[in-house]
Each structure stands twice: as structure tokens, then as C-alpha cells.
């Protein structure tokens, strides 16, 4: 067992056993995320078509899905639409969740963020997006946003503030606004190689600061 672990050790590689990547981590559940065991177990039940379990997963992860999707897409109606798609995708593909590859939260948020990003990149013309943004503006910069006393938010805010300014801006623009590293580079006026590296360093620092995924 590595490090301090969460409430429950996540599936680990048995010695000598061929396993996929990412198996040496212990419970990466953030505080306030609820017991990992429950969420993973609930997903397993969802895979069997268990509606109450889906309800529970929905309650736990729905607000994060909606929040991140809305931050990227900004337009409320579209954000709702994509949130529905993501949660339906969780229902549809629950059987594909593999606890040895990461936490349920990471699995679901990856789907949510990718769908949101794909939506703004493919469907919306840039001008239209700007127009919508103008009418449905939401403060996106979580660092300056007045946030509630949620433990998660507090930790994330603290860890984001521990980054260099370029790192923080790269992460904020990429993750919360859905920009590619190329777009971030031109926004910030730095070479793409620099942005790639900063993003990589920033996430490693965040990961370590947050105490997840190690």
C-alpha cells in the first residue's frame, strides 16, 4: 500500500499480475465526495439497471457534472442538454467503468468535460458562442469568484493559488473555458511548447497539492 490512502484502498495490482496502468494508486476520493466504495459499488449496481443506484450516483455527481459543463459551455440550455447526455452516458456505460483505472468521479468528470469541450468546438460557431456568452455570462474565473465554504472548493482554490500565474492561467483557460493549448498560447502570447509544459507541470503540482492520484 502506498502513501496514506483514502478511506478504502483502491484496487491495487497484485504482485506479478499484469494490470492496466494506474493501479498503484490508493483511494483518491476527495473529501466531501462521499465514500469511494459507495460510488464504485453504486456504479456496479447501475450497470445492472438499478434505478435507485443511478439516482444516488446522480445526486452525488450531477452537480459537479452540471457545474463544469456550464462553465465550459456557458449557455444554460446547452449546458443542461450536455449534462443530460453525460448522465445518460453514465447509465449506458456503467458496466465499462473500471475501478482499477481511477475513481468513479474522475471517470465521470472526464466524460463530462470532454463532451462539453467537444460541444463548444464542433457545434458552435465562434461568433455565435460569443453572442451567447454575452447574454448568459457567468463569472468563470474560479480563483476570483466568491466561493462557498465547500471543502473541495477551498482546497482547489488554495492549490490553484500555489501555481505560478502562467500555470494557473493555462489551467483556467483550458479547463474552465475549453481552449486548446494552441489557443491558450495565442491568448497568453507565449510559445505553444511553453504552454504544453506549463499545463503539464501545473496539473502535477495540483495533483500533489490536492493529494490525489498518487
Amino acid at each position, binding site marked *: 500500500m502506498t502513501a496514506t490512502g483514502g478511506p478504502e484502498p483502491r484496487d491495487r495490482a497484485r504482485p506479478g499480475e499484469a494490470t492496466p496502468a494506474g493501479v498503484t494508486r490508493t483511494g483518491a476520493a476527495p473529501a466531501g465526495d462521499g465514500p469511494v466504495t459507495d460510488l464504485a459499488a453504486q456504479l456496479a449496481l447501475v450497470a445492472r439497471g438499478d434505478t435507485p443506484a443511478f439516482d444516488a450516483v446522480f445526486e452525488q455527481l450531477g452537480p459537479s457534472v452540471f457545474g463544469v459543463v456550464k462553465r465550459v459551455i456557458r449557455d444554460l440550455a446547452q449546458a443542461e442538454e450536455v449534462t443530460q447526455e453525460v448522465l445518460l452516458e453514465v447509465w449506458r456505460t456503467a458496466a465499462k467503468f473500471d*475501478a482499477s483505472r481511477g475513481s468513479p468521479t474522475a471517470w465521470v*468528470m472526464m466524460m463530462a468535460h470532454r463532451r462539453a469541450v467537444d460541444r463548444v468546438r464542433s457545434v458552435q460557431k465562434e461568433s455565435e458562442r460569443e453572442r451567447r456568452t454575452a447574454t448568459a455570462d457567468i463569472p468563470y474565473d474560479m480563483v476570483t469568484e466568491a466561493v462557498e465554504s465547500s471543502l473541495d472548493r477551498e482546497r482547489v482554490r488554495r492549490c490553484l493559488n500555489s501555481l505560478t500565474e502562467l500555470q494557473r492561467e493555462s489551467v483556467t483557460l483550458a479547463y474552465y473555458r475549453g481552449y486548446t493549448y494552441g489557443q491558450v498560447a495565442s491568448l497568453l502570447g507565449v510559445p505553444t511548447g511553453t504552454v504544453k509544459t506549463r499545463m503539464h507541470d501545473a496539473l502535477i503540482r495540483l495533483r500533489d497539492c490536492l493529494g490525489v492520484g498518487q
Partner: protein
Amino acid sequence: MKSKLTRAGARDAHTLAGAYAMDAISGPDREQFERHLAGCAECAQEVASLLEATALLAAAAAEPMPAGLKDRVMTAAAATRQQPPADEAEAGPGARRQQARAARWLRSLAWPGRLALAAGTAAVAIVLAVAVVFGVSDGSMHQQLGQAQASSQQIAMVMTARDAVMMNGQVTGGGTATIVVSTSRHALVFTAQGLRALPSSRGYELWLIGPDGTRPAGMLPAGAGRMAGPVIASGLRQGDHLALTAEPAGGSGHPTTPMMLDVTL
């Protein structure tokens, strides 16, 4: 297969792990990096660990969901086939342990709690109705949904629409049609049960009849047994009726036989 990237190239690809974990990477780059990931366990592990960090970035953005969203998702879930798991023979230890945990969790959950979760919302009635209409017991429907994911998503879009309305109609000559209409999506989902079988040279065709005339809205799949559809018809306009006629198997440009169904949408 190991990547053919040079040492410098591999380093470069490795650096992309951060951008990849934040989806800050566009189509071709993403595909290339995913090919690299497939052959680089270390990179995959790194990406997985970075995704735990980005998951917290998402959690920090959490906010209350709009009213009604949950009911719509639950309704759509009831009409959506789930993907099967990996074959047991190939299932890894993770999957088996996960199942064991699920069983423990299930046993630990008291019945009253589960019942409380299951009951209590008005949406339950809709969920049940949808489940019946869209054939939880009907294999062919599930198969079609499974095969045509795009269509299934379109159907889900209609089913989850805030303004989705379900209606029924009797088909002249036998059978019942069930239609879920969403005005905001400009679309409807049509299914029918117990339609009279037609000779193979003919098929059922749907029509949208509005103030501006009659538009073909799709053929029902040929050879469907007891249950026909679901078929999605889009491009709905204000004041449309939905009609059904029997036409040559290839479809017609306009109805050539008497209407067997006429529903005001």
C-alpha cells in the same frame, strides 16, 4: 506495439499528458496521443493520476442542477439500453472486486431506503409508461437502439425534452400508435403495436401534414413484428398532424391511400 517516436518525440508526447487530461488538445493531436498512450503504460498511469486532479477542478465548479433535469434523465434512462459489461472470462480482478463490493453495498442497504428512492416523484409514472411503450420486454427495440446509437441519442433528446408529451392513437385496420412529441426539439418518436402485416411490396409511411402541405416523415422499418419503431420524425412545425398510410415499400412523395391514423400534435 511500442511507439516509433524518437526519444525527443516521446518526451514531447509525454508532456502532452497535461493538455490531454484537460482536453486542451484538438482532434488530430488527441488521436495521436491516444495511440501513444495505448503503448505507454507509464503515460496512461500519469494521465489517470492527472485526471483525478481535473476531477477536483470539476467538483469545485459544482452547482445545483436545474429543476426537472433529474426527472428527464431518469425518464431517458428508462428508455435507453445499457452497454453490456466485458466478458466475464476477460474480466480483470478490479471488475470482480467491484462486483463483490456492489453485493455488499446492496445487502447493507435497507429496503425502506431503496423504496423511498424509487417512489415519490411524479416522474415514476412517466418512467413506467415509457418503459412499457418502448419495450423493456421487446428485444428488437433494444437491438435497434443498440445498433443505432445516433438514432438512440436523437430519441433520448426527444424523450428528455422538458415539453415531451406522450399520445396514443388507434390505427384504422388494427394497431395502436404511441407518439412522444417535443415541440422544442421539433421532433417526435413514433412506435406502433399490433399493426396489420403488409405484403413485402408495401410499407407503412409517416406523414407530417401542416398548413403548408404534406411532408413525408419516414417509413416504418419493414418486417418489424409485433412492435414497429421507434422511428424519429424531425422538422416538426406548428399546427402539424401526424398521419400514417400504406405505401409502396420504397415510400411515396405524397399519400396515395387513405389515412389510417391522424393525430393532432
